């Protein structure tokens, strides 16, 4: 993906082919450096927008969510603590929370009437699946997901991409109440260990 390459390739300096260090960019952004934030945006916008679209579905609303997330990231950049996780994890946690808040408040406003059929509906972002497949990391993640049991994977995807609570997930998957949270946790642990993150 082009945005994973160094953004400052036009720079007249050393031109070292190193992707920008997101933690450094966050630190600079926290000091008000808009240039650094623009680099951070370029390096992460496809992930942020992609997650927002996946959860919120409506592209226009998803962009609003992405914009909210970036604003929050800008405002709170100085509070990012590298000792407590990777920059990407921090960014995606913020984005995901914004996206989930959006779908839940929309749901509260108009109780979702399309039921659970969405699982069988075509997903609008499929047009970009090509791009996602091109990512080696995405390939590894997809592969790692195959190591989950089907129920773990479904529960995790409904929670993370669907924005449903574990109680709703239990009901959707006909699991006993209280079981879905365990499936979600087990699935995440297996994903974590397979991918070797978050030691």
């Amino acid at each position: 993906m082009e945005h994973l390459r160094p953004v400052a390739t036009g720079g007249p300096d050393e031109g070292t082919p190193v992707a920008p260090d997101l933690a450094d960019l966050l630190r600079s952004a926290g000091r008000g450096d808009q240039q650094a934030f623009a680099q951070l945006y370029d390096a992460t916008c496809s992930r942020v927008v992609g997650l927002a679209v996946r959860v919120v579905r409506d592209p226009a609303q998803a962009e609003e969510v992405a914009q909210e997330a970036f604003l929050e990231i800008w405002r709170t950049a100085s509070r990012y603590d590298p000792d407590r996780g990777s920059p990407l994890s921090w960014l995606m946690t913020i984005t995901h929370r914004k996206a989930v808040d959006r779908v839940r408040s929309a749901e509260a406003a108009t109780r979702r009437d399309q039921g659970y059929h969405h699982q069988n509906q075509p997903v609008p972002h499929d047009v970009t699946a090509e791009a996602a497949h091109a990512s080696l990391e995405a390939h590894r993640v997809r592969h790692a997901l195959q190591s989950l049991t089907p129920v773990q994977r479904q529960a995790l995807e409904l929670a993370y991409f669907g924005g449903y609570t574990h109680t709703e997930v239990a009901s959707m998957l006909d699991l006993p109440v209280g079981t879905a949270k365990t499936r979600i946790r087990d699935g995440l642990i297996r994903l974590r260990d397979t991918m070797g993150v978050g030691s």
Partner: protein
Amino acid sequence: MSDDIHALSGAYAVDALDDIERAQFERHLAGCETCREEVASLQEASALLAETTMTPPGADLRDRVLAQIATVRPLPPVVPVGTDAPDGPGTKAAPRSAPDAGTSTGSTSAPGTRRLRTLLVAAAAVVAVGVGGTVVAQQPWADDDTSQAPRLSAVERIQQASDVQTFRHRFPDGAEAVLYRSASLNEAVVVTSDMGPAPEGKVFQAWLQHDDTMVSAGLMPEGPDNVVPLEGDPATADGFGITVEPAGGSVVPSETPVLVVQFADA
């Protein structure tokens, strides 16, 4: 129960808890190192899922985002807003050293915990200021209290308690908040004057800190001048804070406190 709450770590990491469960779990997180570490690691894992959904944004999003952030000031690291002692030893609390202050124990990226710790760190900073003599002003009531009138107001009753503590805080804009606390009465009251309104759609919320947990002490009414008795147990609390929260208040503090005082060293 304890086992149950540990098991929520995964659901928490993917925002699959309802509001009440989330608040409960965040309280639990504040005191559970194991869960903080697990949540952090599971958030690393869940963030990987976003790798599979990358979507290039519309062409104008970048411009909109960059235009918007240009108009918004980044929040300061962890220094309490409105502390009126520029030379106080606590106001310079370095953001990166802050996690070692207060009650921090290890790592998490749970936003709620981060906020809570920010509040606690802020509290520590203000304590240091207080030691410098500008915020904390303990005021043992000199007069004997045998002449208590039968019908004292709550604030008078607290003010005249033999063990009253007074914490006075003046904000940069001239507003003032004074907290009177009596441990023997288990009562505390905040008296505000010239307080500006909370931002649109927000309220000021009062908190009592018990160990690592912030417990709501009620919402502050609108208006510049108020006398607000605190809910809860001021006698056993370790500190007090005011935050800005969405209308209706929050179960756990979600924003930088505008005022924090620590009782312990008073």
